[in-house]
C-alpha cells in the first residue's frame, strides 16, 4: 500500500510538474511572445470544503514587461481561464504591486519588469467525492511589451485529486510566499485621507516615499504622472471629477524610513467638498 501511495504521489507530482510546463505547442507561442508561463498548484490533494491557492507565473524576457490589472494608459493585463467542473469555484486573481512606467507622450502604465506571480484560490465543493481526479484545462493570455508589443498565450492542464485531507505539493512554499506578499487592506487609521475641494491628501506616518496605483474603478486622478509618486509621508492627488460618486481605491506603496516596503490597498469614499 505504501509503495502504491508513493508511486501514485510521484505520478501526481509528475503530472502537476508537467502541468507546470507548457505543452510543446504553447512553448512555441511563448518563445514568440517573449514570456514563459507556468501554472502550479500548492496541493496535490485537497479535501471537500477546503480552499487552496494556485499560481500562474509569467516570466518576461530581459527588458520586456507585462501589465498590471489597474489603471493604465495602454497595454493589456494577463487574462486567465480555468475550466473547472460545476460547483468548483475559482476566486479572483490576486495581483502584486506593480511599478510605474512612463513613456514619451506622457503615457503612464503600471507594469512588471520581472516575473509576475498571480495567485488564485480554488474552493473544493463540500460535495466533492473522495478519490475524484480532475484534469482542469487552463488558459492564459497576455501582452508583453518592450518598444514593441507582442501578444502571447499558453494552454495548460492542472491536475487535482480529492482526498480526506490536504497534501501539499512541492510548490506550496513558493505559492504561499507569493500569497503572503500580496497587498493587503490598510490597517484602520494607518492611512489618513484629507479631502479638499478637488483633491485628496494621503498621509502615512513614518513613510519617506509614497506611490499610488489606482484601480480601474477608482475616482480618476487628474495628473497621475505628477501626483502619483511623492517623497515624504504625504501624497496629494488632484482629481479630474471631484463630484463623482466613485471612491479613491488602489494600492498605496510605501517606502518607510527603516527601509521596509509596504503595499496596502485603500478605499476611501469621495468626501470632496464639491461632491460626494
Amino acid at each position, binding site marked *: 500500500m505504501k509503495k502504491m501511495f508513493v508511486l501514485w504521489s510521484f505520478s501526481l507530482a509528475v503530472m502537476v510538474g508537467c502541468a507546470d510546463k507548457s505543452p510543446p505547442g504553447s512553448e512555441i507561442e511563448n518563445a514568440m511572445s517573449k514570456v514563459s508561463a507556468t501554472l502550479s498548484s500548492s496541493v496535490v490533494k485537497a479535501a471537500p470544503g477546503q480552499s487552496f491557492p494556485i499560481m500562474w507565473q509569467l516570466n518576461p524576457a530581459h527588458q520586456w514587461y507585462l501589465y498590471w490589472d489597474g489603471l493604465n494608459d495602454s*497595454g*493589456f493585463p494577463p487574462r486567465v481561464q480555468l475550466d473547472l467542473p460545476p460547483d468548483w469555484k475559482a476566486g479572483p486573481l490576486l495581483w502584486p504591486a506593480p511599478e510605474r512606467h512612463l513613456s*514619451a507622450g506622457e*503615457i503612464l502604465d503600471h507594469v512588471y519588469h520581472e516575473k509576475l506571480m498571480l495567485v488564485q484560490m480554488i474552493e473544493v465543493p463540500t460535495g466533492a467525492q473522495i478519490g475524484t481526479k480532475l484534469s482542469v484545462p487552463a488558459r492564459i*493570455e497576455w*501582452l508583453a511589451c518592450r518598444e514593441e508589443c*507582442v*501578444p502571447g498565450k499558453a494552454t495548460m492542464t492542472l491536475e487535482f485529486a480529492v482526498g480526506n485531507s490536504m497534501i501539499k505539493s512541492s510548490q506550496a512554499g513558493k505559492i504561499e510566499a507569493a500569497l503572503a506578499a500580496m497587498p493587503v487592506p490598510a490597517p484602520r487609521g494607518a492611512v489618513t485621507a484629507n479631502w479638499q475641494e478637488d483633491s485628496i491628501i494621503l498621509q502615512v506616518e513614518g513613510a519617506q516615499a509614497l506611490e499610488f496605483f489606482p484601480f480601474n474603478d477608482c475616482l480618476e486622478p487628474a495628473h497621475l504622472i505628477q501626483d502619483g509618486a511623492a517623497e515624504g509621508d504625504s501624497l496629494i492627488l488632484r482629481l479630474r471629477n471631484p463630484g463623482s460618486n466613485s471612491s479613491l481605491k488602489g494600492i498605496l506603496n510605501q517606502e518607510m524610513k527603516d527601509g521596509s516596503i509596504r503595499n496596502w490597498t485603500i478605499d476611501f469614499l469621495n468626501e470632496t467638498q464639491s461632491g460626494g
Partner: protein
Amino acid sequence: MTNFTTRLFQHSVACALILMLSAPLAMAGALPGEEAPAFTLQDTEGNDHSLTDYLAEGKTVVLEWFNPDCPFIVKHHKNHRTMNEAFAKVKDHDVVWLAVNSSAEGKQGYGLERNQKAVKEYQIPFPVLLDPAGKVGRLYGAKTTPHMFIITRDGKVAYNGAIDDNRSPTELGETNHVLHALNDLMQGEKVRIPETKPYGCSVKYAK
C-alpha cells in the same frame, strides 16, 4: 537686493528658462466639447490633409491613431476589418476617416515605406497621415493605437476614446463606440457616450 541675492535670482531665472525651453512638448488633449486642434499633415501619397479644409466642406472627421505593427491595429485591420467596415458604413454621409501615425524615427511603425506597405497590406481605403514629430498626436493627447476622435463640422470634439468595448489584442468587441457615436450624429442627436477609455499599444513618440 544684495549682490548674492541678485545673482541667485538671475541664476534661478536662467535655470527656469533652460528647463522651460528644453522640456518636451506637453500633451494637451482634445476632450469632448472642446475645439479640435487644427492640423495639416501629409499622407503616404504626398497629399496634404487639413482639418480646417474638411470642416469647411461640412465634413465630420474621424481620426484613428495608427501604427501598422501594433497588435491591436493588426486585430482591427488584418485579422478583422473593423475600421474598413466602419468606414464603408459612413463614407457616404459626409464622413472623412483619417489614420494618423505619430511613430517617431527609429520607433515601431515609423516611416513612409512601412506605411505605404501597410496601406496595401491592410487594403486601407482612407489616407494614412504621417506625424513623425508627434506634434499632432500630442495636441490631441493620443495615447494608444488605436485612439479614436470624432470631430463635427463645427470644429468640436464629439468623441474621444476606444474603437470598441473589448480591450483584448485579439478579440473583437460587441459595441463599436465610433459607429454608435456617428449614428447619433447622423440622427441629429448629441453623442450619448462621448468618451471612453482608449486601449491599444502606446503611441511611439520621440523621447
